[in-house]
């Protein structure tokens, strides 16, 4: 996209509009009826317009069975890691997913990558449900959806050279680049992510964390994917190096026309990079909206508590900000509370919260109103509250 490369750095402008036009976020899925592998591949190769949904997740569920017994395993329960979530990812946008450890955000990443099989629910990529694919069609999907991992120290094979690591995608998908071309392509990729192309024969342990993460990003880019799923891509890095990697990811998004699903626990980084943000709690989506809607007009008590707990690098804000200190810990996903999952730590909880599961929808009080608070929030008693203390 010519216009977007020219405005790297201030991506708020055009893209926001395109994305905003497509809200509410859960759109209708246009099913494609491809039955043969060839047809599926044709569907997957078709381009998607900017601002159109490219990935649609519907009622995705992942339960990990808990078993007992060694010889005769019987199921005694399930860890409800992801328990029915739906969202859309639009072409060219960054959707941030935030939540605390154990909320299921990393499981979502694995499900979207089809590294785990979903218990139920669908993931539509260009209208094609990828949870049911296998073989060549699945391989074609994997070419288009790539992943950047959290820990750059464990995500690169220590026994392979950087050239082999970044070149491996071409060996798995030989149709993308002819053999003689690969070395040049790998060197180009190294250059794109800001590493010296001469490092091609080095081994991962010869690099620092930030450089390794760049190698991981180069590997993710090798197949020219449309979607990159980033699972905590900077949380293992030093502060001064985080900014380098975040800027690089921003630049690459414009250059290669990528859609990002950005999973992180650091709310500041998510705000910086995301166009829209979803907040997860115990396997469910608590609230989802544009970055302004979530950060400046949160309506779900969990989002508010989460935001208020984030330490802001500004000592003057100590006095200005209201802090909501939650009591207790996140309950076990093997035995989540009935009704609203957050009710055990919520200061607003009433009887209704224990009985009725709140739906992720625009709260009635805000329905039809033209206010940033009118975004989807799964709370019976949703109300606006500014906790970030925007000056």
């Amino acid at each position, binding site marked *: 996209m010519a216009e977007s490369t020219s405005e790297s750095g201030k991506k708020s402008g055009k893209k926001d509009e395109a994305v905003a036009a497509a809200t509410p976020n859960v759109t209708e899925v246009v099913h494609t009826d491809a039955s043969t592998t060839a047809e599926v591949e044709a569907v997957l190769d078709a381009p998607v317009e900017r601002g159109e949904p490219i990935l649609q997740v519907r009622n995705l569920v992942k339960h990990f069975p808990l078993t007992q017994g060694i010889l005769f395993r019987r199921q005694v329960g399930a860890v409800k890691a992801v328990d029915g979530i739906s969202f859309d990812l639009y072409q060219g946008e960054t959707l941030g997913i935030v939540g605390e450890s154990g909320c299921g955000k990393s499981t979502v990443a694995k499900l979207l990558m089809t590294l785990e099989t979903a218990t139920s629910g669908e993931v539509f990529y260009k209208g094609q449900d990828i949870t049911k694919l296998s073989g060549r069609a699945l391989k074609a999907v994997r070419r288009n959806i790539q992943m950047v991992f959290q820990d750059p120290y464990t995500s690169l094979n*220590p*026994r392979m050279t950087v050239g082999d690591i970044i070149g491996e995608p071409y060996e798995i998908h030989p149709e993308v680049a002819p053999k003689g071309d690969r070395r040049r392509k790998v060197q180009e990729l190294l250059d794109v992510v800001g590493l010296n192309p001469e490092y091609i024969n080095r081994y991962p342990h010869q690099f620092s964390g930030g450089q390794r993460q760049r190698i991981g990003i180069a590997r993710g880019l090798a197949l020219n994917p449309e979607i990159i799923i980033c699972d905590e891509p900077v949380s293992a890095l030093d502060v001064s190096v985080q900014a380098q990697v975040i800027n690089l990811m921003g630049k690459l998004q414009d250059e290669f026309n990528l859609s990002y699903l950005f999973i992180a626990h650091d709310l500041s980084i998510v705000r910086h990079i995301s166009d829209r943000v979803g907040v997860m709690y115990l396997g469910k989506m608590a609230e989802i909206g544009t970055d302004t809607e979530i950060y400046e007009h949160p309506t779900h008590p969990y989002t508010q508590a989460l935001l208020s707990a984030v330490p802001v690098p500004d000592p003057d804000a100590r006095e200005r900000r209201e802090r909501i200190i939650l009591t207790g810990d996140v309950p076990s996903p093997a035995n989540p509370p009935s009704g609203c999952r957050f009710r055990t730590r919520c200061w607003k909880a009433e009887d209704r919260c224990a009985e009725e599961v709140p739906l992720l929808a625009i709260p009635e009080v805000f329905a039809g109103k033209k206010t940033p608070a009118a975004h989807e929030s799964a709370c019976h008693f949703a109300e606006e509250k500014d906790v970030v203390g925007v000056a």
Partner: protein
Amino acid sequence: MPDVTKTPAASDTVLTSDETVAANVPAVPATGKPRSLWSDAWQQLRRNPLFVISALLIVLLLVMAIVPTLFTSVDPRSGDLTNHFMSKPEWGHVFSPEWFGYDKQGRSIYARVIYGARASISVGVLVTLAVTILGGLIGMLAGYYGGWIDSVLSRFTDIFFGIPFFLGAMVILTSFTDRELWVVAGSMAFLGWTQIARVMRGSVITTKQSDYVTAARALGAGTGRILFRHILPNAIAPVIVVATIALGGYIAAEATLSYLGLGLADPTISWGIDISDAKDALRDAPHVMFFPAGMLCLTVLAFIMLGDAVRDALDPKLR
């Protein structure tokens, strides 16, 4: 322990037991050539005196096994009862047939010790190879696939693990009348693979969970690529260590079986047979037992030392 082992370069983290120190010294790409973990391990090995000593010994043993004529021109099987019955060593006559003296059949002990290396080393190497391939494969499949495949293979391994090694070997070997080298090696391998299988299984399970394996799967890599490109090279190190140490053990086991008369038999020359032959005259002529037994100990020790050195180089975190 020499301090060298505390500052490994072959580990993923850069240095020492102290995490903060490791973080303090980042791997700096500004200098140096590509260094694979294998070459790092080699650098580390080369500086380890334990390795140098054991490697020299092993090279010497290998040369003995392959070309014994380099060391002696005497036929170890020819006895001369008239002249040399159990005569004492002649310390001054280095490398000559009478150096270590003669046994009760008047055969040169020196020549027999040299020629005995071939059987011992062959059995050791053959059994280790067989065990590594068989045990490695079973362990790898069990570890990689998990689930019912793992259950079946692991129980199968446990059953074999439960058979006492020597008892089992004796039972098998007594059923053979003609115990050639491969028969002895084969029966030992048949009973000995379980240790490697267990080590391999554990190592594969650990490696399987690494992010780089997940990354390869996310790229759409097939099972073969994942197993042989990603898992095996990273899981093999502990197996190499165990196999090297076990090699010494197999040589000792062969000698034990031969001593009991259940392993190799005449005319094959084996230290175990010689030790057995010497036992009746131990008081009168201890040297007849001393030389084959000493050689056996030295060989076993060399492989155990090598295994230790290799472990230091490949997996410094292990200690």
